[in-house]
């Protein structure tokens, strides 16, 4: 069994990639995928610690996270379709109605 450090480092790298993606990408779907990546990075940490500590609580949390992520994906994709119908674009830079 690999040491826990390896899982955590992988998780950290995935989270960082996700964060940078959210901050730099302009396509809403890509941003969305990056958020999923961040969530899964966290999931990986949960699982790793669950195994390491011999406690199932972490795995229960992961189920919750996955459920919420699925729901979020449904809502998020619906929003994006609505957005595309209105503006013919899913570029977040075009969504700036709040700006003066």
């Amino acid at each position: 069994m690999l040491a826990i450090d390896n899982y955590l480092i992988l998780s950290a790298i995935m989270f960082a990639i996700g964060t940078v993606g959210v901050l730099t990408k302009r396509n809403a779907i890509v941003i969305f995928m990056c958020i999923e990546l961040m969530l899964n990075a966290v999931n990986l940490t949960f699982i790793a610690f669950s195994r390491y500590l011999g406690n199932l609580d972490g795995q229960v949390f992961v189920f919750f996270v996955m459920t919420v992520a699925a729901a979020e994906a449904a809502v998020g994709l619906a929003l994006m379709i609505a957005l595309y119908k209105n503006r013919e674009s899913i570029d977040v830079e075009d969504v700036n109605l709040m700006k003066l």
Partner: protein
Amino acid sequence: MFEYVWLIPLFPLIGVVINGLFGKKIKNETVIGGIAAGAVFGSFLVACGILFQLLSLPGEERHFEKTIFTWISSGNFKADIGFLIDPLSCLMLMVVTGIGFLIHLYSIGYMHGEEGFYRYFTYLNLFTFSMLLLVSGNNMLLMFVGWEGVGLCSYLLIGYYFHKKSAGDAGKKAFVMNRIGDFGFLLGLFTLYWYLGGTHNVWTINFRELASHADLIVPGAITTTVALCFFLGATGKSAQIPLYTWLPDAMEGPTPVSALIHAATMVTAGVYMIARMNFIYIKSPTALLVIACVGAATALFAATIGTAQNDIKRVLAYSTVSQLGYMFLAMGVGAFGAGVFHLMTHAFFKACLFLGSGSVIHAMHHALHHEHSDADPQDMRNMGALKAKMPVTFATFLLATIAIAGIPGFAGFFSKDEILWQAFSNPHHGSANMLLWGAGAVAAGLTAFYMFRLVFMTFFGKTRLSDKAFHHLHESPWVITVPLVCLAFLSVVGGWIGVPKVLGEVLGGMPNYFEHYLEPVFAYSTNYMLHGGHGAEHAHSIAMEWGLMGVSVLIACGGIALAWALYIVAPGFPEKFVSTFPVLHRAVYNKWYIDEIYDFAFVNPCKACGNFLWKGFDVVVVDGIVNGVASVVRGISGLLRHLQTGMVHNYAFSMALGVVVIVGVYLFR
């Protein structure tokens, strides 16, 4: 019957509610007028019942208090909604409901076809309610509620034809003038309450309790202040110098309103108030002197203006001011009973005169309307020879005129003569008595002159209308003439209940019923004067009284004869007089320029002050602060606004940065 006193103000209030809420829907004039007049008639019946019960009791038991509920109770201060019945308030109830009913009846005919018929009767009922509250309230605060209520109704009814600017202005003028007086009333009330409570621990504003503690009110500066403050209130409401100028302008209202409010009832509220508080006034010789002088001056001054007016209602208005001056003269010489007596007789004949003039105006209006003429139906220079066309109006008007002129046997003679005699013989003012009597006597002569001038110009001589218009003149319907006849009857016989002692003895020991009736109300003042009052009782012979009576009758006859000579025998003479003394005539015709002087001295400075506060203070300082705060906030938010880019990226980045900072703080501290 006493228990039902609360019904008296309640009936008109019900009328107000019905006509005020549903009058617009009812539309039927007979129903609206019937409800209003019926309500007042109901009050009149209850008042009659109370009067008869009062008369059946012996003199010293003639008072009753009915408390409905406690209105305000706070610490030592307590005010009830309650009614006081004594000879004085009962008399006022009778006058207000009796004359009020006749005038309501008259109004049904007079206001026929007017726009806002229901509005008129709502106001009129509201006025009656307020006036009844004023005269029957058992404490000063309740009296003040009525006092303000009648002022409000007066304003509303003067401005009844509000589409006319002059009517609106007159209403406002009346309201503002009355406010000045009300200010005095309130100051007097506060001072009295503070003085009795603070020095004697008697915290009360109830009339009977005040009267029972009258001994605590000692002559002095505070008593004089209280008395004069209340008198200021009375000058506003009762149109005395210096606050009388609103009353002549109040003639802009419908004529029955002038009769009810501005002649018979509301304007006598000041006289009633002073009579009610006689135990305060009797303690202050200074206040009495001020009242007597103001009363006499007003009586004389207003009478001079009355001689040169051409508007029939304005003559009567100045006559009212002048007669109110008589009542205050009576109050000022301590003859409270005589003043109230004149109040009553004046209510009879002046209501009759005003309603008569209304009947004339009504007829003139129709006649001029037929001819499509723009001539003023109120201007006496357009009238003349109306007696053949309007016999009932003429007869009643003439009787009331004889009554006001002071011809023996008619109501005005007894009351006016009593006041003049008291002015001459009272123990209060020493050598000033001659002056007071003189002013009163000259004013009596002027009264006889201008009233008969009015009658001669209106009813006698040749008509100044065209034949066609004159042909269309006709007598008024019965709803108008019946009240006239009732009031004329009262003007003739009303004085016989108060025959002076000297006359009564000649007439076979006829007692002065009226004085006797009011005795319990003024008993304290009478006793105070008998036992160690100020000034010594002068001995006046009966011959003197007879002599003065003769003089005043002669003066009145002289006034009538002069009017006869100038306006019937030599109708050209007044013009000659005017062209001989143009300055004098112009001054009198323009009311001695008092309105202009007031405008210059008070109104315009107040306006300038208001304009300064508006443009100099409100716009610059107040608005400046408010706008300044707003622009500072706006500036700061303009800077902060740049943080809100509307870019999701920027927000996400600032969130990530925040997380890094928080985690960093935990890691490296």
